């Protein structure tokens, strides 16, 4: 298989397969969760659950209280660094926005590539810092499973291959771009069936926590 065929495959059939598995998996997981239902709430309603739910969806984007911040400053900085970095890299790089527009029809302004480049490096550094932390922190290491390491790797690969393609490192741009797209396709396939599903379920979970707390009249 030459460079052109490889690139054509990942942009064609490869993408179709990955997208199909991705949307199939997301629908499957959401349906499973929603059909589980909830036990009826028997206690007297003491507050506005809906408002509290909506508020919680957004309030939990902010760092926790100062005590938590002090205790786990490293995790907060590296965690936010990598999430914000990923957001910028995925959504605000022009070719990525072009792909999203061609698939969904939605478009938005993008950032100059040197800025995206900076965030790419930031993301990779944060991911490596998180891996180092996972390997050196005794409790975290004890709790870590193979999936945790695999997900770190699968998240890291698209960022690394994208960076290498942009800077023409090791392989020609065509091969590296193909590998970059392939690594994203691998990630798309595993997202619904691993802990990475949190990128969608977090909104539902936050809303539910906030809703329950709101109905009970407590702060969420």
């Amino acid at each position, binding site marked *: 298989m030459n460079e*052109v*065929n490889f690139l054509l495959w990942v942009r064609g059939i490869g993408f179709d397969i990955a997208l199909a598995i991705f949307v199939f998996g997301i*629908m*499957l997981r959401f349906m499973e969760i929603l059909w589980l239902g909830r036990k009826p709430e028997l206690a007297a309603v003491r507050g506005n659950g809906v408002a509290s739910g909506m508020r919680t969806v957004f309030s939990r984007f902010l760092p926790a209280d100062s005590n938590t911040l002090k205790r786990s400053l490293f995790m907060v900085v590296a965690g936010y660094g990598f999430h914000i970095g990923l957001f910028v890299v995925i959504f605000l790089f022009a*070719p990525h926005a072009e792909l999203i527009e*061609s698939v969904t029809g939605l478009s938005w302004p993008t950032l*100059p590539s040197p800025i995206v480049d900076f965030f790419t490096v930031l993301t990779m550094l944060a991911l490596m810092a998180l891996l180092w932390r996972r390997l050196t922190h005794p409790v975290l290491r004890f709790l870590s499973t193979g999936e945790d390491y695999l997900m770190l790797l699968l998240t890291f690969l698209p960022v690394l291959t994208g960076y290498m393609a942009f800077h023409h490192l090791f392989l020609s741009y065509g091969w590296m*771009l193909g590998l970059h797209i392939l690594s994203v396709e691998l990630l798309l396939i595993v997202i619904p069936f691993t802990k990475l599903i949190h990128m969608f379920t977090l909104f539902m979970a936050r809303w539910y926590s906030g809703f329950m707390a709101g109905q009970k009249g407590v702060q969420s």
Partner: protein
Amino acid sequence: MTTRKDLTVGEALRTQGISRRGFLKFCAATASMMALPPSSIPAIAAALEKARRPSVIWLSFQECTGCTESLTRSHAPSIEGLIFNVISLDYHHTLQAASGDAAEEARHTAMKENDGKYIVVVDGSIPVKDGGVYSTIAGMTNLEILKETVAGAAAVIAVGSCAAFGGLPAANPNPTGAVSVSELVKDKPVVNIPGCPPIPVVISGVIAHFLTFGLPELDNLGRPKAFYGTSIHDRCYRRPFYDKGLFAETFDDEGAKKGWCLYKLGCKGPTTYNACATMKWNNGTSFPIEAGHGCIGCSEPQFWDAGGFYKALAEPTGNFTTTAGVAVAAGAALGAASGLLNRNKQKQAGAEHETVTADNLEKEQTS
């Protein structure tokens, strides 16, 4: 008596009225475009001065003559054109005066007289389906002519994307079973000079390199690295707009008028390796991107089938909407079914649940 054929390149150039200064300028230009150090200029000059005019047999197969047009027409008579004049072009359908048996005779004579030393230039792909009947010359298939001619050649230069990679004739569904030269010629060095057409200076540059230092250094697709070493994107004068995120969205919007990047209009500059952005066309006037159209990637293999000229490189090429629609429906249906099953399990568990009291536990302990 010295015939025109016996002249060295240097002598032949002087008979064309090229001064020593002009000759050295050409050597310097050749050195710089082949990315050789300035110290190599005297070496090039000395080697070219003494080099015998090589016999060149030009074979035209499934092609459009665009490559020959590129070489003979795009320039006003220039020194690159003249170096082409000073090779001994012994066989070329379009350019030779002889026809019929006399033409074929010229090819055979050149092959016999220069056995093991002549250069074969091929433009056009070679059809191999059904015994190669789709293109014949003088009653011979292209395949037969190629095999016969290449047998005594020093090297083969595949000029144009058809000869280098199969090009248009090999585009899907490839009705004639067209293949490139390198797929057929395995025992001789093959230099690919792809492009539709290739840049004329590159063709003469490769011949000059062959005369001075032998075969040039090639990349993994058999292209001279000196000319195909960097991508169009990396040398494009519109690259700053790409980096700033300024793109033309259509061919007639403000961005297009301001000369912004054509990436979103399907420019294949990032994946295309060629010298257009630096050497340019029509005597250095401009190149396609400068004329307002994205690069179509004509010097890359299968450029015709590479997902559409007007589709941005980031865009998927397939028709994913149906597949994705089916996947959404299937996921929803299976998820609902699985959800229902879980609910049933829940209910069953609830029904089978036995309440345990403290009395039960005490009884269990005593029994």
